[in-house]
C-alpha cells in the first residue's frame, strides 16, 4: 500500500427504514406497494454515480448505535443476522450479511486513542448491527460487495452539549481522514442521519399511503431549506457553525455527530456537491447529498 489512501466519495445518506421497506429487497420480510419515491430515486442516482467510482471500503457513522461511553468500532470480520427496527418493526425486519474492514477500523481506533479520544473495538460476535448502518449501506450499495467500517454515535449531545459533541466529531473526522490516508485505501464515507427530525407519533394504517406524508411543521422545513442551500453553495464550515442552533430548533438528527464528522473528514469542502433528493419520512426531513473530491467540480463524476 504505497499509494496514499483517500476519501473518493462521501454521502449524506439518511436511514429511514421506510425507504428499504418501499424498495422490497429480498432481505426484508415486510413488503410495500410504493412510497417515498423522491428519496428512493435520489438514492438511485447516488448509486449510479458511485458505480463509476472504485472504492475498497464504506465507512459509516450511524445515530442508532448509541454509545454513552466513548466511540466504538465494529471489530468482528463478518456479521450475519436479522435486524428488526425497534420503532418500525412492522416495516423493517432485514436479514443482513456483511463483511467488516476490521484492519481499517482498528487503524482508526488506534489513531483516535493516540489522540486522546475514548474509543473501543466491539468484538462480541453476537452483537447486532444497528438498523441505521444497515439502511444507509443497503441503499448506497445494495449488493453488499464492499466491507464496512461501522462507527458508533457517542451521545455527548445528551451528556454534555452540542458543542462538546461537535468538538469530538470534528476530531474524529480528522482522525478518520488521516487513518484512511495511512491505510492506502479508497473509501466511501456515509453520514447516516436525517436533517430535521421531529416525527409524527401516529402512523397511517397503510404506512406507504403518501397522502399522509408531509413535513412535521413549517419551521422544520425552513431550517432544512436553509441547511440545504448552504450545502449546495459549498458553505460546509458554516453548516457546522450553525449546527447547535439547527439541532435545537429542528431537533436535527445530526445531534448524533455523524454529519459534523463527515464534513470534518472531508475538511469542510467548498466545492459544489451533488444534490440528489429531499423528502420527508413520517414528518422528518431527509436530504441525500454526494461529495466527490476527485472530480473536477466536486459534484457527480460524469
Amino acid at each position, binding site marked *: 500500500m504505497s499509494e496514499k489512501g483517500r476519501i473518493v466519495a462521501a454521502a449524506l445518506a439518511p436511514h429511514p427504514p421506510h425507504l428499504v421497506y418501499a424498495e422490497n429487497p429480498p432481505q426484508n420480510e415486510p413488503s410495500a406497494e410504493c412510497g417515498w419515491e423522491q428519496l428512493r430515486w435520489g438514492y438511485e442516482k447516488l448509486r449510479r454515480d458511485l458505480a463509476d467510482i472504485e472504492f475498497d471500503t464504506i465507512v459509516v457513522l450511524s445515530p442508532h*448505535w*448509541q*454509545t*454513552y*461511553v*466513548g466511540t*466504538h468500532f465494529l471489530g468482528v470480520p463478518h456479521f450475519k443476522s*436479522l*435486524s*428488526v427496527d*425497534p*420503532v*418500525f*418493526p*412492522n416495516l423493517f*425486519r432485514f436479514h443482513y450479511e456483511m463483511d467488516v474492514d476490521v484492519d481499517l477500523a482498528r487503524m482508526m481506533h488506534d489513531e483516535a486513542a493516540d489522540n486522546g479520544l*475514548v474509543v*473501543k473495538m*466491539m*468484538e*462480541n460476535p*453476537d*452483537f*447486532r448491527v*444497528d438498523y441505521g448502518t444497515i439502511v444507509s449501506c443497503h441503499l448506497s450499495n445494495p449488493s453488499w460487495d464492499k466491507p464496512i467500517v461501522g462507527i*458508533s454515535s457517542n*451521545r*455527548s449531545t*445528551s*451528556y*454534555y452539549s452540542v458543542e462538546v459533541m461537535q468538538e469530538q466529531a470534528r476530531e474524529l473526522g480528522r482522525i478518520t481522514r488521516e487513518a484512511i490516508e495511512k491505510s492506502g485505501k479508497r473509501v466511501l464515507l456515509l453520514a447516516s442521519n436525517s436533517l430535521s427530525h421531529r*416525527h*409524527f*407519533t*401516529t*402512523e*397511517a*394504517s*397503510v404506512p406507504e*399511503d403518501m397522502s*399522509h406524508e408531509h413535513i*412535521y411543521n413549517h419551521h422544520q422545513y425552513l431550517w432544512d431549506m436553509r441547511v440545504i442551500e448552504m450545502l449546495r453553495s459549498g458553505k460546509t464550515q458554516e453548516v457546522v457553525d450553525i449546527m447547535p442552533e439547527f439541532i435545537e430548533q429542528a431537533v436535527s438528527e445530526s445531534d448524533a455527530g455523524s454529519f459534523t464528522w463527515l464534513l470534518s473528514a472531508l475538511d469542510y469542502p467548498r466545492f459544489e456537491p451533488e444534490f440528489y433528493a429531499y423528502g420527508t419520512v*413520517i*414528518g422528518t426531513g431527509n436530504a441525500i447529498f454526494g461529495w466527490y473530491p476527485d472530480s473536477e467540480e466536486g459534484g457527480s463524476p460524469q
Partner: protein
Amino acid sequence: MSTIVKGLLVPGIPHPLLAPEQNEGWQKLRDGFEAARQELIECGAELILVYSTMWPSVIGHQIQARAEPEWVHVDDVFHDLGSIPYKFKMDTDFAQTLQECSTERGLHARTVDYHGFPIDTGSVVALKLLNPDNTIPACIVSSNVYADRAESVVFGKAARDAIERHGKKTAIVTVMTLSNRLFTEFIDPADDAIHSPKDEEWNQKLLEFLGQGRLEDVAQLSREVHRQIRVKKVVNFKPMWWMSAVMGQNNNYDGCVHAYAPLYGTGGAVISLTPTPSGFGNKEFDEDDVESFSGDRNVVDSGSKTQLEPEDTLPAEPTVHTSSPTIQTDAAPKPVGSYPHARRVGDLLYLSGVGPRQPKTNDIPGGPIRDENGDPREYDIEAQTKAVIENIRVILEASGSSLDQVVDITAFLVDMDRDFAGYNKVYNETFGSIQPTRTTLAIRALPTPIAVEFKVVALPGG
C-alpha cells in the same frame, strides 16, 4: 380489592447480571434483585408488567406480544461484558387487552409480535433476574420519547384498566436508574461511584420518599428530578408518572429499599412498594389529573375502517366521507345541523340522533305528525320506527358496523301514550334478538315533524 400486588423499581444496566463479582455495589444490587424476586413469589404475582426507560418508542406506545421471544442479546455499550441469551414467556392476552384499553383512552398503541424484535437491555436484565424460570408470564411496554405527563399518566391508567379487566394479580416493574449520568470514560470497576455529589443528594431524597412508600409524591416531583439528575435523552423523566398512575396515584405503600449502589456513575436502586391501607397518607395534586389523551399526537390520520368510494367511479354506491373518525354518508338523511352521522371514539361508534326522514327526498314514511300549517295530523308510528331503524342500518354499514353491533339505544317519542306500543312492536322485530340496553323517553318535540328518534351507540364492527 386491587389486583396490583407489588411495585418494583430496578436498574437496567447489565452489570448486576453479567459482572456482579467485579464490584461490591454491583453484587449488592444483584442481591437486591434476589430479594425482590422472593417478594414476587410471596405476593403470588401472576403477571409481571415491565415499563422500561431503555425501550424508547416514537409511534405511540408499543406492547410486547410475542409469546416466547428468544434471542442472544448484546448491549450496545457494554458488549464486552458478554452476551445474554434469553427466552421469555409473555402474556399475549394481556398485551392485547392493554392495547385495547390504551386505544379506549385515546392513545396510539400497538402490540409487537416479531421474531428477533430487539428487547432492550433493561427489560432483559429485569426479567432474567426477577423471573429466571419464566414462572410468571410477563408483558413489556415502551417509553414514548415525546410523551409528557398527561400521556404518561393516561398510559398508566390504561394499564390499570387492563389489569382490572384481565383480573390477574400483577406486579409492576419499572426499569430505571435514579440519577442516570454514566461515566463517559471507561472506569476500573473498583472506581465506580455516583457521578456527582449533587446526584447523590437527589438520589438520597428519592430513596427516602420511596422508602416511605410515597410514590405519588415522587411522581409530582418528576419535572424537578428531570432537571436535576437526568441526562436529557427524552422529553421528560416519566417512569414515576406512569407507575403511580398504574398503582392508583397515592402514597399508600410499604416501601423497602433492597439495595442502592453506583452503576457506572448512575444511581442503581432496587426498591419494592407493597400496597397497604395505612400508608403515608394523602398526596397533594399540583397538576390536573387527566383521564384520556387528546394531545397533538394525531397529526397523521390513522385512518378509518370505512372504505372511501369515489363517487365518480361507483355512482351506484353511496359516498362516505371518512377522512377523520367522523362518518357522513349520502345514504342517510342529511343532518339538520352541524354534526356527522357518526363518530368513532376508541372502540365505540357514536351515532347522532336518527329519525325516519328519507335520505334523498326528506319524505317521512307514515307521514309527518303536523301539516304545513303546523296542525296535528294522523301518522303511522310503525312506519316511522321502521324507517328510523333502516336509516340506522345504513349509517352503521357505512361506518363498517351493522345492526347486530348496537350496544345501547336511547329512544325519544313525542307522544308516549299514543306511540309506545307501535314503536315497541317494530323495535322488537329487529332488536329483540340483539338485546342492546335501551331507554325510552317522552319529549315535547323533535326538530322536524317526526314522532320518533333513536340515539345509538355501537361497536365499530367486525
